[in-house]
Structure formats: C-alpha cells, structure tokens
C-alpha cells in the first residue's frame, strides 16, 4: 500500500450515526499502520469467520452482497454453527454430485465405446476371463494408424472396429509380459483409452441396451441430486447473505477502534483513504446526516489517533 496513493481524512458526526457510518464508510478507511504496510498487531477475531463465509458462498455459487445492518440477528456462535452446518451439508452433496458426474461420464464413454465396437463379435466375458491376455479399448487418431506398421514385430494386435474421420475405434491385445511396452507404444500414438466395466459380459450389441439404461439411471440420479443441491442453496441464500453482512459489520467495527473516538455525543475518525477511492468515500459519507469530512492535515478539532486525551469507546 503505497503512501503516495493515500490521503489523510478526518471525519466527525453524531454518535448515534456511528453504526451507519461504520456500515457505509469503514471499507474505505485504513489505519496509519496499514498505510505503511505494517501488519496489524491484533488479528481481527472475525476475519476467520468472514473467510469461511466467503469460501462457502464461492463454492455454493452465492453472490455475496452488502446489506444494511440495523441490528444483529445472531450471535457469533450461531453464525459459526450455521456456516459450518451449511458448509458440511453442501460439501457432502457436492462430493456425491461429483461422484455421480464421473459415473455419468463413464457410462457415456461405455455407451459410445459399445456403439463403436458393434463390429466385434466377441463376448466381453471371454476377453476379460483370459488369464494371460491384456486388452485395452479406446480410439486411435487416424494420423497414427500408418505408424502402427513400424511396430509390426512387436507383441500386440490392434483390432479396428469402426473407422471415423478422425479416429479409429478398436482394441489392442497383448500379453502380460509386454503390457507395459505396448501401453508405452500406444501412448506415443496418442491412443485414448476408454474404460469398459468388468461387469459387462455379453457382446457389444447385447450390452448396449443395458449400458444405455445405466446411463439413463445415473443421469436421473444426477439430476435429482442437482435439484436437491439447488434447493439447499436457495433455502440458505438469504440467511448466508444476511449473516455475512452482520459479520462484516462486526469486523469493520473492530478494525475502526484504533481510528475512532466518541466524545460529547460526537464521533471522530482519523484515517487514510486510497486516492482513487476518495470520491466514493465522500459520496458514502454524504449520505449520512451531519457527518463532516475534511481532507489533508488533521485539524485542531480532530487530533491524530494515539494522541487523544479522551477515553476510546468501542462501538
């Protein structure tokens, strides 16, 4: 935070407008320590909670907005409990959603693979039950097909089942002994593997309908859980935003202690504002009745923080 970009401001106003002032203006104010880039000695006790709410909001897709706080509706403990419960709830749902999403993608791949393997008359159970053979299903870029002839002396067989414009769908077979070598060869040829579940037993033609049904089932489950997830977020959106505003208010109030004094029914604040935010600050302060703002050096009526003779009061 470069000091050349900061302007010293002095503000004063009626003590009863202090909460409103804190709400509207505190985000622009920086203490002399912050201005010099020093870390605050005391950690704001609300910063951890705020960070957690922000994380919860970001993960659940809730856009946080600042609301006016007229009164605190929950204690710090209640805010913490709500945030934890909401976070745990949607984390659990999110991980189930992710697992389902992966399952849907796998099922979709299997359906695609089975469609492309219709030319294979073999039963999968016969292939999977072989003791010494290793098989990989997937697709080979057409540009790599001609390169296969370089490996004609190697111990593998590639069976193309369907030829597209860009890929050849098929499978390669090798023995356990040459498994690693063959996998390296096909990796160099940019073969994209598709995993076929071991519980598929019949021919691709026989298994396709079953795979489609599994895909439909998994997609349905995913849709249902997505809807529950959406409802959970909607039901908690307003409360999270309100509690965020209240926590923000508490955090700002805490931060302002070092810049604030209250005396004879008036509050006095001295702090620094970034040069490019000064107009916003002026506008925000102007919305509150009887709040005066001075820029530049501290005046006689408002002394710099740390040298005031009167007792500081925390709002």
């Amino acid at each position, binding site marked *: 935070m470069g000091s050349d970009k900061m302007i010293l401001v002095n503000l004063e106003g009626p003590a009863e407008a202090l909460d409103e002032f804190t709400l509207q203006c505190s985000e622009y104010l920086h203490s002399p320590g912050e201005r010099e880039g020093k870390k605050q000695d005391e950690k704001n006790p609300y910063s951890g909670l705020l960070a957690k709410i922000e994380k919860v909001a970001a993960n659940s897709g809730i856009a946080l907005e600042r609301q006016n706080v007229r009164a605190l509706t929950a204690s710090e403990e209640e805010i913490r409990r709500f945030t934890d419960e909401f976070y745990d709830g949607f984390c659990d749902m999110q991980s189930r959603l992710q697992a389902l999403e992966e399952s849907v993608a796998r099922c979709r791949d299997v359906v695609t693979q089975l469609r492309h393997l219709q030319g294979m008359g073999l039963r999968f159970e016969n292939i999977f039950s072989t003791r010494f053979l290793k098989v990989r299903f997937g697709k080979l870029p057409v540009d790599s097909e001609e390169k296969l002839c370089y490996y004609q002396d190697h111990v593998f067989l590639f069976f193309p089942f369907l030829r597209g414009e*860009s890929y050849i769908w098929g499978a390669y077979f090798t023995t356990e002994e040459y498994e690693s070598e063959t996998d*390296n060869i096909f*990796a160099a040829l*940019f073969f994209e593997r598709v995993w076929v579940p071991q519980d598929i037993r019949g021919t691709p033609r026989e298994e396709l309908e079953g795979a489609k049904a599994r895909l439909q089932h998994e997609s349905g489950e995913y849709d249902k859980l997505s809807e529950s997830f959406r409802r959970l977020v909607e039901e908690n959106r307003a409360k999270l935003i309100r509690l965020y505003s209240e926590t923000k208010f508490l955090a700002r109030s805490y931060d302002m202690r070092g810049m604030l004094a209250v005396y004879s029914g008036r509050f006095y604040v001295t702090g620094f504002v970034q040069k490019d935010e000064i107009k916003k600050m002026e506008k925000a302060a102007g919305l509150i009745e009887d709040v005066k703002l001075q820029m530049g050096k501290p005046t006689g009526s408002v002394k710099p923080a740390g040298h005031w003779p009167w007792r500081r009061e925390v709002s």
Partner: protein
Amino acid sequence: MLDSMSSKAIFTKIKAMYGHRLREEDFEQLMHKSSVPACAAYLKSQTWYGEVLRDVQETQIHRGALEELLGRAVFEQYSRLVHYAGKGNRFYRYYLIKQEIGMIINAVRLIGNDDPNEFVSAVPGYLLGSVSFDVLSLAACKSFAEVLEVLRRTPYYKVLSELQSGDGGPASLPLVEHALYDHYYKTVLAMIDQQFRGKTAEELREMFCTKAELISVTSLFRLKRSFADSPLQLHEMVLRYKGRLPGRLMEQIVNAQDAAEVLDILAHSAYSRYFDKDNFVYIEYSAGSIRYNLAKKYLTFSQNTTTAFVAFMVLQEIEIENLINIIEGVRYKQDISQMRALLIRGGV
C-alpha cells in the same frame, strides 16, 4: 507458370484463409486458460481449428495429439492450395522438403536414444504419405550410417554422406543441420531461378534468403552464448545466401567474442529495430518478428500468387509456433507475462 484463372482462385483462397487467422484476443483468451483441455475446447469452439478438432473429446486429449492436429490443420490448408495450383507448379514442394529435413534432423538428434517411440510420436502422421523416404525406419536407426542407408535413394544421401566420419558417425549435429539447410536453400533458390522471373523471383528470393540469414544469425548467437570456445569452425556454420546483412558484417558476427557482441553488431545493422539491447527478449523472438513482418508485408501488398502463398505459409507456421508455446505455457503453469513475451506478433 500458373494460368491467370487458377492464380486468381488461389489468391482469393489465401486471403480467405488468412482472414480466419487467430487474433490478439484469441491468444489472450488461450493464455488465461487453466489447462490444455480448456485450450482445446476454446480452439475447437471459437477458431478455424474447430474443423480439425471436431471429433476430439477435449477432456481426454493429449498435448502431443493436440499439437499434431494443429499441424494437420495447416497441412490441410497447404494441400488445398496446392490442389488449386494443379500439378504444374513443382515449386510448392518446397514446403514438403522442409518438413522432410526437420524429420531427418530429429532422427539424427535421437540416434542412440533407447526409446524409438519418441521419434515415432514426433513424426506428423499426416505427412507419411507425402514424404520421399520411409520416415518410420529412421526410428530404429542406431547409427548415422543406418540413417544414411534409409536415405540412400534421396538427394539427402549425397549431402549427408560427406559428413560421415571414419567411425561411421556424423561430424556433429550442428553440421548436419547446416548441410541440410544449405541443401534446402540451394534447391529452393534453383527452383525459383527456373520457374520465376522479375519481381516474383525477387520477392521469393528475399523471403527465403532472409530466413537463411536468420538461421545463421540464430545459430551463431546460440553457439557464442553456450560455448565460448566452440570447437566448430564457425565459418562453416554460415548459410551464404545474401539477405540484408553485408558479408563483412556476417564475418564480424562469426568473429565476435561472445553473444553480447553479436547483439551489439546486430543492433547497428539493417535489423537494428529488432535487436535493441534494452528491449531484447530472446533471439528466436527477434528472428520470428522479422519473418512475421516480412511475410505480412508481402501477403498484404504483393500481387503475385506464389509470393502470397509462401508468405501465408510463413504466417501459419508462426501461428502454430505461438499456439504450441501457449499450450506448453498453460501445461506447465507458466506466468502469463512470460507467455506473452514468447508470442511472435511482429511487434519490436
């Protein structure tokens, strides 16, 4: 020579293809992607590469496969343009000769490598039907003599056999590169002399000779930077084709003490605006910028189809270089400012 009808058709086709080139904002978008699949998805949905990437599943694609497909896209453009030109113009084969030379250099570089898959993987599959020798046989070569055997029936055999040392190996990789590039430029300039006259020949000569000169400058700069006391005869590393640097300046570069002196000489040459010592990024960037600006100038102003063809292919190659740099940058989580610095856009 081309007849005027096909000439006009190719010219229009080139301009249309160039109109689909990637813009500044495309490169910016790509640099901000978090993964190779995200880059692939953008190229597939937002750029002219979508045609060649249409069947690609972005989430699964391997970086090498993606780069090969981008190369294929440019090769398809080349093939389409050559198809328009018909079989009457042998000059366009220059592009394939360059690809062949690239593969031979890679094969020599990988002699003795235990993993032949590395070479096979790097060979663009789409070129296999167009090259004049059995490229894949190069993967199995364990010695320079075996490489020569594969190339026996090609013009490269004579060029490289002169470099074979007593023990059957090559003198060195830089000398192999030099000999092959020298052969390439001799062949291309001879084709230009045979097939073109006047302004066309002049424009083509300028583009190819400038590239040859930049190859020499880049090689010398790299050697001076990496090996102060290089055992190589640096005079032998220069491609003697007249570009923009007078002969005496090239001699000064050859005799320079180090890379800094090379830079100083270039900063006072016809390429001075590309070699400002205060803003120098790296030698390949400067050389790329010169090629980019020259090609762009000819594509914009030349009225000749062959000049426009060569200029267009240079710009397409640079676009691919830029894309590969970005994809690798994204893959290795490089800083965006670093990726931006590597981007060749003709600025200096």
